């Protein structure tokens, strides 16, 4: 009410930044090998390639909906690089770069996006244990914010068991308004949990601008409510993301508790393929943020450092296109999940009468028989 339009309240750039939008350093670059930097670049390329394919597939009706992360890739990527094997990750749904960095199986992901059941996918796209990503990824939080208490519990378990792994959760800035965010952080603060929460502030929560989401000046400061250290960083600078998450993770591993990091970034495209953001936001924003693009500045830096040359991008994109297409095709080739799969994985042990009965009803129906002919409770078992 009476609040300014988003474009009048551009987020302050008073945050931690190492790599300037023009690709030059304003601080010290983190110690990362040239090989690792090239890997980061590759994941950038892969993420953009993957998301472009996903959008095309959605347009052709293969996927019912696709969410992309264009403009926000540095957040998931920098965080990914700061994780270690054995860590647990609780993504929102804008971390394709995190998944790609850790070689999460794209074929399986695609089969999932197409609405196959997880058991069915595992059956049709088997992997040995050592093929699985070394970081464990939980399903993303369809129910916004619900991943935070889970991540906290996971972190509490690590601490109780004396493991030095961490739990890392991503949450959109809009989702920090959900009670779950605070419910989880209350616990994380009190139990000094080895947790890193990254608030991926992409300025928009579908149609709601960040400025209407909270009266707090920053999302990072929400951590103050729980006595948890917080930091606000340039989320379009992969160096800062990496460096900040790495330090938070190290603290966590050493038993020094949780950290909340607000990564300031921008959702360059629509919320998802069902959205049309032109209805609620103006083009001047996009122009401003284009100058802050995370990929461009990283590319400029790598070019200057001669880690890549002008042909690298094309080469990597072509490679990515090939393997991603292959993976996606494998995912698409998974035969449709059979209806009885819906009964799977609800409870352990012998199914009870109702489950047996309903399974039998479904089987009868699929066999073209009338499923409702049992009037004694003994007919369908």
């Amino acid at each position: 009410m009476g609040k300014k339009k988003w474009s009048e309240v551009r987020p302050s750039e008073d945050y931690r930044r190492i790599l300037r939008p023009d690709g030059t350093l304003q601080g010290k670059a983190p110690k990362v090998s040239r090989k690792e930097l090239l890997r980061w670049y590759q994941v950038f390329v892969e993420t953009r390639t993957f998301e472009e394919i996903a959008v095309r597939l959605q347009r052709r009706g293969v996927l019912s909906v696709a969410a992309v992360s264009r403009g926000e890739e540095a957040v998931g990527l920098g965080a990914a690089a700061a994780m270690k094997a054995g860590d647990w990750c609780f993504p929102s749904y804008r971390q394709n770069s995190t998944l790609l960095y850790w070689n999460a199986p794209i074929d399986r992901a695609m089969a999932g996006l197409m609405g196959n059941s997880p058991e069915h996918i595992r059956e049709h796209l088997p992997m040995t244990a050592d093929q699985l990503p070394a970081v464990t990824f939980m399903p993303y939080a369809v129910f916004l914010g619900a991943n935070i208490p889970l991540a906290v519990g996971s972190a509490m378990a690590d601490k109780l068991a004396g493991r030095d792994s961490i739990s890392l959760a991503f949450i959109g800035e809009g989702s920090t308004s959900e009670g779950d965010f605070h419910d989880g952080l209350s616990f994380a603060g009190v139990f000094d949990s080895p947790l890193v929460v990254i608030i991926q502030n992409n300025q928009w929560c579908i149609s709601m601008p960040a400025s209407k989401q909270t009266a707090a000046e920053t999302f990072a400061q929400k951590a103050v409510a729980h006595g948890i250290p917080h930091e606000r960083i340039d989320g379009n600078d992969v160096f800062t993301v990496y460096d900040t998450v790495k330090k938070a993770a190290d603290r966590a591993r050493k038993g020094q508790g949780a950290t909340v990091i607000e990564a300031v970034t921008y959702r360059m495209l629509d919320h998802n393929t069902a959205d049309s953001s032109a209805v609620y936001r103006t083009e001047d924003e996009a122009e401003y943020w284009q100058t802050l693009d995370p990929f461009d500045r990283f590319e400029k830096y790598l070019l200057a450092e001669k880690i890549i040359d002008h042909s690298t991008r094309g080469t990597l994109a072509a490679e990515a296109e090939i393997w991603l297409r292959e993976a996606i095709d494998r995912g698409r080739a998974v035969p449709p999940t059979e209806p009885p799969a819906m009964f799977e994985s609800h409870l352990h042990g012998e199914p009870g009468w109702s489950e047996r009965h309903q399974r039998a009803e479904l089987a009868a129906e699929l066999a073209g028989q009338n499923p409702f002919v049992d009037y004694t409770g003994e007919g369908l078992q």
Partner: protein
Amino acid sequence: MSAAIDKGQTEELNLVTAINQTLRQELARDPQVRVMGYDIGPIGGVFRATDGLYDDFGDQQVIDTPLTENGLIGAAVGMAMRGERPVVEMQFLGFMYNAWGQFIYSLANLHQKTGGLVNVPVTIRTTFGGGIKPLPFHSESTEAYLMHTPGIRVVCPSTPYEAKGLLAAAIRCDDPVIFMEHTKLYRAFREPVPTADYTLPLDKCRLVKPGKELTLIAWGNMVHVSQQAVDELDYDVEIIDLRAIAPIDVEPLLDSVKKTGRCLIVHEARRTAGPGAELSALISEYAMEWLKAPIKRVTAFDVFFPDNQVEDVYLPGPDRVKAGIEAVMNYQF
């Protein structure tokens, strides 16, 4: 049961435009009507139900809020308590679970807790139901949770005409009303809807089609699925649109079953402890002498709403309804 009324001047609307028009009329009629929720302002709702309202009524009557369903219901109740008439958009019924605290303690209970001193005239518009293959928790039909909660009314329109009249009535009602909008019906079809405003009773079921051999009870999209099934069979089925999900309009259901001697309940919700359980128990208790066959429930299965690929088999379709009708019609004691 309520009868059809003379519709006067009409226009062809689908369900979501009927809702949009009603909100518009109610906002204009009463300045204390406040449409509120997230994504209901400039974007006009993710299903465009509030399209254009923000531009026309401004941010004092069309209030975009932070993303907390629990805060949303609580604040709406607090406003209602002080004389406002909030119309909340709850994007999906499945998101109401994390507002269950304020739903029970404030929305449903406050009027009773204050001995009637405080009214809670809040309408909660929420989408429910399957068929559009979205994400998990976007297709919930958990109205059974609502039915077991005192202090609220729950209604579900199955056509654009019904939607307009019921929504206007819900907004003007001094009780909290949960207004269940089936996503698949939003743009499924159009029908003539009176241009003038009107209300329909919130506590009455609706006779869709009279019949003598079997009483079929359904609501939301299942009314249409059932109608299709009935059309494809040769039985004289009476179709009743439950419409008032809570409190239930019991008499017409009993009267119908006493007449037909048979009953089939069709719903999208899971079966166990679902809405059909209450309907079946009620009818068995008070009309058993008239029953020529046990009551059957044609429902979804007792599992979480499944992945898209099996959604169609999860939900009752015309074939499942036909099987239910056949089974009950052919039963012999």
